[in-house]
């Protein structure tokens, strides 16, 4: 059984009198421990796919299953809890809460799951050390560089020790050197801790860390390439 199993997924958005078909019947399955890069032109449905993979959104048709559980069968609250435990997100624009320090940002996912304050703080600090920000614990996002912000975001994604990391163009807002460092960090984390990562990217260098590349066009999978490292 795959970790994530998507079958016959379509996603439609009604837009005035017309309908936007973001995904048009798509089958993907992702195994535990895999790093999968999703590539494709702008508007091909990559982010939409990521939202469904990350249990943020439900498909219009088709079945999305995480460890065999049909996500559509869950109530909203259950979905939120599942997402909080199993999935960590890294975004192109970092999306840190501006009013919170690095540590508080990393604590946030644990807060929502009800982790005790002491445990939370300890884990947050450990994660920040892990991503190389031992000295930036008390900094707020606007006191950090882009690369540092993305490291905080990665630490936050790891907060609840999720099985799956979903990264939507994590290097899109970084220069190539910083981007390479972030990719190296993500890859190292996945390899060391056996995490599964789905990496959405335009950048062939980024895709190069993946075990498999899935190409989308117009909401369909047009190519799958397996890499052997």
């Amino acid at each position: 059984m795959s970790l994530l199993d998507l079958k016959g997924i379509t996603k439609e958005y009604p837009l005035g009198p017309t309908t936007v078909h973001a995904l048009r019947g798509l089958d993907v399955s992702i195994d535990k421990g895999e790093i999968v890069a999703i590539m494709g032109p702008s508007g091909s449905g990559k982010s939409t796919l990521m939202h469904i993979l990350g249990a943020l959104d439900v498909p219009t048709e088709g079945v999305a299953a995480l460890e065999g559980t049909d996500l559509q069968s869950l109530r909203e609250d259950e979905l939120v809890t599942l997402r909080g435990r199993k999935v960590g997100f890294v975004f192109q624009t970092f999306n840190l809460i501006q009013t919170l320090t690095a540590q508080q940002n990393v604590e946030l996912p644990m807060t929502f799951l009800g982790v005790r304050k002491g445990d939370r703080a300890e884990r947050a600090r450990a994660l920040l050390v892990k991503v190389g920000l031992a000295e930036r614990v008390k900094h707020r996002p606007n006191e950090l560089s882009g690369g540092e912000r993305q490291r905080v975001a990665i630490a936050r994604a790891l907060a609840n020790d999720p099985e799956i990391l979903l990264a939507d163009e994590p290097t899109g807002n970084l220069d190539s050197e910083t981007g390479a460092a972030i990719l190296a960090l993500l890859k190292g984390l996945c390899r060391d801790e056996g995490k599964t990562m789905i990496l959405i990217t335009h950048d062939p260098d980024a895709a190069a860390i993946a075990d498999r590349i899935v190409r989308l066009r117009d909401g369909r999978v047009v190519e799958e390439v397996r890499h052997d490292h």
Partner: protein
Amino acid sequence: MITEFFRLASQNVLHRKLRSILAVLGVLIGIMAVVMLISFGLSLRGLMTGQISKVFGVDTFMIVDQDVFSGRGHGGAVKEYALDLETLQGVEGVKSVAAVRQRTAFVQGGANVEGKVQQGFFPVLGLSPELETEFAAFTGDLVFEEGGREIEDTDVEVAVIRRELADRLAVRVGDTVLIAGEKSNEIQAKVIGILAASEEEEEDQGFAMGASASSSDTIYIPYAAMDRLWPEGNDFLVTLARVLPGYDVDDVADRAETVLKAEGSRVSAVTSGDITSVIDEFMTYINIFLAGLAGISLLVGGVGVMNTMFTSVLERTKDIGVMKAVGAKNRHILAIFLIESGLIGLLGGLIGTLLGLGAAGLVCWLINTFANLPQGVAFPFVASPVLIVTTLLGAFALGAVSGLWPARRAARMPVVDALRYE
């Protein structure tokens, strides 16, 4: 978790300082007005009940004309009534009584420097000796000129007058004045005391004199002398009665009123409770008015908070998406925003309460210091804990309620839409 939400919310409040300040200001002004007005109302009530309890003990009631207290008839003006003091004294539970009777009498004094005998018609007040012994607070402190003294139990043919009248009648302490009553009743009253001309006007001479609208030419004589001049007691101004220990003052007052009315006296018996309840009724109307005023200003403040919160929700759409993505449930988001708007309300409430209390205190101080209040009368500054706690809770609730709609909008925002928001 909730403490974390408080931190998130308070950091948001602090983050947008100017906007928060404006919203806080909207709440603050309303709260301040309410707290100030209510506090001042409480001061007013404190002043009135304080004055009443000075005159009235818990065991004292007062017999007045039945129209005085009800406000009917002569617009509450003081009016004489008929009364049999013996009957009142005989009512079960009554310990002692004291009365004030009023008449106008022909009075003859001494001769002036030109040898002309001074005379005229003047108001005469007959005072029970018990007024001094049992109801001292009622008469207040009398200030005598040297050589003068108060009327005592055994005195009959004596009089106390004021300095102004002493001059007019050309008498000194020790002289006698002739007072003529009905028919051919008359007494030669010895002037035993002259009240010093007071700078404080009449008020400090106590309630009895105030109530009789006594003027500088009033002559005070013992009740016994009054009885001798006008045996028919239909000229009572006010009568005080003290009840025996163990009796309920309201019961005894009711009983006295019934007995006296049965005898044909048009009177009502008034206890301090009766007066306080009239004041309270009056205060209730004031408070209803204040509540209306408060309602309007708080509505305005609430709309301000709501506006701020809508802006805040819109501005943090992306944050809402992120928080939901990392595991925030709808109720978490709701709580965060409700706390934020509640804090704005609470902050406004806190500052508004302090300023309101300060303003009320200042008004009391200004009045006490600069207004020409009678001696011993001062507005007590009342910082009611109930008022403060209620106001603070109310302010938090106001903020939270005003934030409910924006917070629900935030909570129900679909996570993907929020994440895509630019």
